[in-house]
C-alpha cells in the first residue's frame, strides 16, 4: 500500500514537472542567419538554373550535330560515284517509261 502511494506521488510530481515552464528565447542573430540562408539559397537556385540552361542548350547542339552527321552520311551512300551523262539519263528515262517501245504497234500491223 505504501509502495503504491509512493509510486502515485512520484507519477504526480513528474506529471507536474512542466508546470511553470518558461519559454526559451532565440538569439539576437536569428534573423541575420535566416536572411543569409535565404540569400544563399537564391544564389544557388540561380546558379542551378543557369547550369541547367547551359547543359540543356549544349545537349541540344550535340543532338543537332549528330543528326546532321547521320543524314550527311546516309545521303552520300545514295549518290552514285560518277555523274551520269545526258545520253545515259535519256536512255534510262526511255527504258523506265518505255516511251519508244514500238513493238506493240508492229505486232498489231502484222496481224
Amino acid at each position, binding site marked *: 500500500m505504501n*509502495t503504491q502511494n*509512493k*509510486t*502515485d506521488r*512520484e*507519477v504526480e*510530481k*513528474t*506529471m507536474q*514537472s*512542466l508546470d*511553470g*515552464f*518558461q*519559454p*526559451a*528565447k*532565440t538569439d539576437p542573430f*536569428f*534573423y541575420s*542567419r*535566416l536572411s543569409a*540562408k*535565404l540569400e544563399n*539559397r537564391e544564389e544557388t537556385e540561380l546558379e542551378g538554373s543557369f547550369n541547367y540552361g547551359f547543359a540543356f542548350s549544349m545537349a541540344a547542339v550535340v543532338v543537332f550535330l549528330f543528326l546532321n552527321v547521320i543524314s550527311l552520311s546516309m545521303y552520300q551512300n545514295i549518290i552514285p560515284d560518277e555523274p551520269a551523262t545526258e545520253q545515259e539519263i535519256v536512255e534510262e528515262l526511255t527504258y523506265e517509261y518505255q516511251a519508244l517501245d514500238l513493238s506493240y504497234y508492229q505486232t498489231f500491223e502484222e496481224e
Partner: protein
Amino acid sequence: MQFRNVDIKRVNQKDIEKTSLIERLQDGDEAAFKQLVNDHKDQVYNTCLGFLRNPHDAEDVSQEVFIQVYDSINDFREEATLSTWIYRIAVTKSLELIRYRKRQKRFGFFQALNSLFNNPDEQSDEESYMHPGIKLENKERAKILFREIDKLTEKQKVAFTLQKVEGLSYQEVADVMEQSLSAVESLIHRAKENLIKQLRTYYEQNEMD
C-alpha cells in the same frame, strides 16, 4: 461600455495591421518579413524545441519554417490566423525531422558506422539536452516525462506538447491540428492517461531494481 468600445477599436486596429502585414508580405516587402520573423521567432523556436529537444535542430527547423512562410505566403488564404498557420508549419516540419531520424535509426549498421566518423558529443546531444525553461529542481523528472511523451502516438504527442509545453488553449490546439475541439480534448485526456500508466510502470520497475 466605454472600455468595451476601446477594446473593439484595439481589436479592429490589430486586424487591420495583420491584414496589412500579410499584404506587404505577399508583395515581397523585406521589412514586413523581418517584422513577421521577429514577432514569431520565439514561438516557432519553442514549438520546434518542444518536439525536437535539441537547440541546433530547433534553430534549423525554425529557419526552414520561415523559409516556407516566405515561399508560400501567397497561398495563405486567411482561413486560419497567421499565427496558427505558422504553428502548423512548425509542427509539420518538426515531425518530418523526427520521422526522418527514426528512419535513419532503422539502419542501425549505417548509424553505427556514421558515429565512428562523427563527434560522439553530437550523438548524445538529444539525450542530455534539457529545455532551458524547466526549473532546475524539475529537470530530472522532466527528462523522464519527455522520454515517456516520445512513446505516445503522434497525434497524442502533438496535442499534449502544444497544450502542456506551448501553453496553447484547447481551441488553439484544435485549430493548429485541424481537428474538432472534442477530438483534441479526447486526445489530451488519453495522452495523460497513457503517461500516468507509463510513468507508473517506470517507477515500479525502478523501485524493483
